[in-house]
C-alpha cells in the first residue's frame, strides 16, 4: 500500500486508534473470521454418519487430492474455474477497459448516462440474471434465434447452455455481461485521474485517440488493471451463484460447468440425495482459500511490485 506521507504516530492518539479500529475488527472477527476458522477446523475432522467428530489430521486433504474420484472432480472444477477466470480476464476486463477508454474520451456527450446504464446489469441478482439469460438462450422461446436472425446469423444458434463444450463458456459470458460494470467503473475512475495535459501533449505529438489510449493512458492505469485482475481472480474463484442458479449444484452437463464454488456447496451442504459432508466441504473450501491466497500473494509479490505507480 502506498502511503502519502509520514503517518501520525499512534502514541499521540492512542485511544482514538483503538476506538476507530475496535468496532470493525470485533464485528468482523466475530461474524467472519471466527465462523471461518471454526469451519476450516472441520477440515481436520471427520464425522462418520451419526458419530462424533474425530480429529483425522490431513486425511480429508488426502481424500480430496488423492482419491481418484475426488481428485478428478476437484481438478475438473479447478480447471473449469481457470477457464471461467480466463474468459473474464480475456473478455470482461478488455471490454471494461475499452468501454472505460471510450467513456473517458474528451468531450464525449452523455458519458454519465452511458456509464450508469452500462452498470445496470451489475445491480441485478443472479436469480434475475440466470432467468433472463436462460430465457434468451432457450431454444424453445426463440429470443436468441430471433436476435441472431436480425443479423442473418440464425443458423449459428445452438443450445449452448446444454452442450458440454459450450455450457461453461456461455455461463462465463453471462457472468461477464453482469460484471463488466466493475472493471468499467474502477478503470474509468483511474483514467479520469490522468491529467488532461498528458492527453493534449500526446495529441499534439501526433497521436490519434487510439494511440493516446494505447501508449499513454493504458500504461498509466496498469496498476488499476492489475488490481481489477486480482479482484476478478478472487471473485471468480469464489463464484457460485450464477452457475448454481442456472445449472444447479450438479453443474451439468457432466460437470462441465462445475467450479470450485459449486463443488464446495455440493460437498458441504449436499444436493438432492447426496448428504452434505461438512468436513470434506470445509476441506474443499480450505483448498479454495489456499488457491486464492496463492493468487493474491503472486499478485502482491510478483505483479504489484513490478508495476510502478507513476505520480500523475
Amino acid at each position, binding site marked *: *500500500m502506498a*502511503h*502519502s506521507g509520514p*503517518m*501520525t*504516530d*499512534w502514541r499521540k*492518539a492512542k485511544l*482514538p*486508534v483503538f*476506538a*476507530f*479500529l475496535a468496532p*470493525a*475488527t470485533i*464485528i*468482523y472477527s*466475530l*461474524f*467472519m*473470521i*471466527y*465462523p*471461518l476458522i471454526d*469451519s*476450516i477446523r472441520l477440515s481436520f475432522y471427520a464425522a462418520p454418519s451419526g458419530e462424533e467428530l474425530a480429529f483425522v489430521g490431513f486425511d480429508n486433504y488426502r481424500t480430496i487430492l488423492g482419491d481418484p474420484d475426488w481428485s478428478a472432480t476437484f481438478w475438473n472444477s479447478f480447471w473449469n474455474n481457470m477457464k471461467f477466470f480466463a474468459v473474464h480476464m480475456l473478455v470482461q476486463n478488455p471490454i471494461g477497459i475499452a468501454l472505460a477508454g471510450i*467513456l473517458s474520451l474528451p468531450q464525449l*456527450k452523455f458519458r454519465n448516462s*452511458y*456509464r*450508469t446504464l*452500462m*452498470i*445496470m*446489469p*451489475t*445491480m*441485478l*441478482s443472479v*436469480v*434475475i440474471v440466470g*432467468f*433472463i439469460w436462460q*430465457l*434468451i438462450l432457450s431454444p*424453445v422461446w426463440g*429470443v436468441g434465434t430471433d436476435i441472431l436472425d436480425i443479423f442473418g446469423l440464425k443458423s449459428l444458434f445452438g443450445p449452448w447452455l446444454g452442450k458440454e463444450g459450450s455450457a461453461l463458456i456461455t455461463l462465463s459470458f453471462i457472468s461477464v455481461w453482469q460484471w463488466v460494470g466493475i472493471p468499467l*467503473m474502477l478503470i*474509468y*475512475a483511474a483514467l*479520469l*485521474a490522468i491529467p488532461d495535459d498528458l492527453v493534449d501533449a500526446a495529441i499534439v505529438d501526433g497521436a490519434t*485517440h487510439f494511440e493516446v489510449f494505447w501508449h499513454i493512458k493504458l500504461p498509466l492505469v496498469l496498476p488499476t488493471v492489475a488490481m481489477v485482475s486480482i479482484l476478478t481472480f*478472487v471473485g471468480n474463484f*469464489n463464484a*457460485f451463484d450464477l452457475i448454481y442458479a442456472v445449472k444447479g449444484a450438479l453443474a451439468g452437463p457432466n460437470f462441465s460447468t462445475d467450479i470450485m464454488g459449486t463443488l*464446495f456447496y455440493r460437498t458441504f451442504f449436499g444436493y438432492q440425495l447426496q448428504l452434505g459432508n461438512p468436513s470434506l466441504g470445509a476441506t474443499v*473450501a480450505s483448498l*479454495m*482459500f489456499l488457491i486464492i491466497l496463492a493468487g493474491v500473494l503472486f499478485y502482491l509479490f510478483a505483479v504489484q511490485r513490478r508495476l510502478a505507480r507513476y505520480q500523475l
Partner: protein
Amino acid sequence: MMTKNIRREDMSRAVIVHAILMTYTLVALYPIFLVIINAFKTRKGIFRDPMGLPNAETFSLEGFTKVLAKSNFEVFFFNSFSVTIITIAVVLLLGAMAAWALSEYKFPGSTWLALYLAIGIMVPIRLGSVSILNLIVDLGLINTLTALVLVYVAQGLPLAIFILTEFMHQIPKDLKEAARCDGVGEFKIFFAIILPLIRPAVATVAVFTMIPIWNDLWFPLILAPGDGKQTITLGIQQFIGQYVTDWNAVLASLSLAIIPIMILYLIFSRQLIRGLTSGAVK
C-alpha cells in the same frame, strides 16, 4: 459556419464512438427490458412471443396482482430496505473508521491488521454458515433482521476497508494537519473533516456493498426466514416452486425487485459521478 470548423474525423469518430456505446448499452439493457415487458404479459404472451411488447391481447397485470395479493411485498421491501440501508450505514461508518486508523496512524502491527482485515475478501462466508447460525442462536438474534445486518456488516467490511484505505491516502495531509493545528481532536477530525471529504468514495463502497446484500438469498433463508422478516429475494423465491414455476409472478416480482435497487443505485451514483470526475477528493 459551425461545421466548417469541426473536423470531419471528429464527426466520424463521434459517430463510431456513439455507435459502440449504444450497442453496448443495448446489450446491457435489452435483457432487463425483456424481463420488464414480459412481466406485463399473460403467460401465453410470454412464451408465444417473448420479445413482443405487451399488446391488447397479451397485456396482463396478472403477475403483479398475484404477487401483491399473495405476498407481503411491502413487508419484503421494508425488510430488504432496512437491512440494506442499515448495513450500508454501519459498513461505511465502521469501515471508514478502520480505514482511517489504518491509513493515518502508525502503530505496531498495522500491516498485519490490514492483512487480517483483508482475508474476508478471499473466502466465501457461506463456509461459516453453521457457526454463524450457532452464534446468532446463542446471541438470541435468530429470526431478526439484526442477525442479517451483523453478518452482512462482517461480510461488507473487508472490501470497504480495502477501498476506503486507498482513498484515505489521497486526502491531502495538510488538511488533517491544519485541523490538528486548529486544535481539533482526532475523532472530530474524522467525523467533521474526513468523512465529508471522502463522500464519493463512500458512495462507491456503498454500491459495492449494496449489490450482494440486496440480492442475497442464503442468509435470509437460514437466519431470518420467519414471518414478516423475509427479504425481497426470499420473497421472490416463493414463486419458484419445485415442479411448477409461476412465471408471471416471478417476472412481476423480479421487476419489482429491480426497481428499489436501481433507485438506490441512482442515488449513490450521483455521488459516484462526482467522485469519479472530481479526481476523488481534490
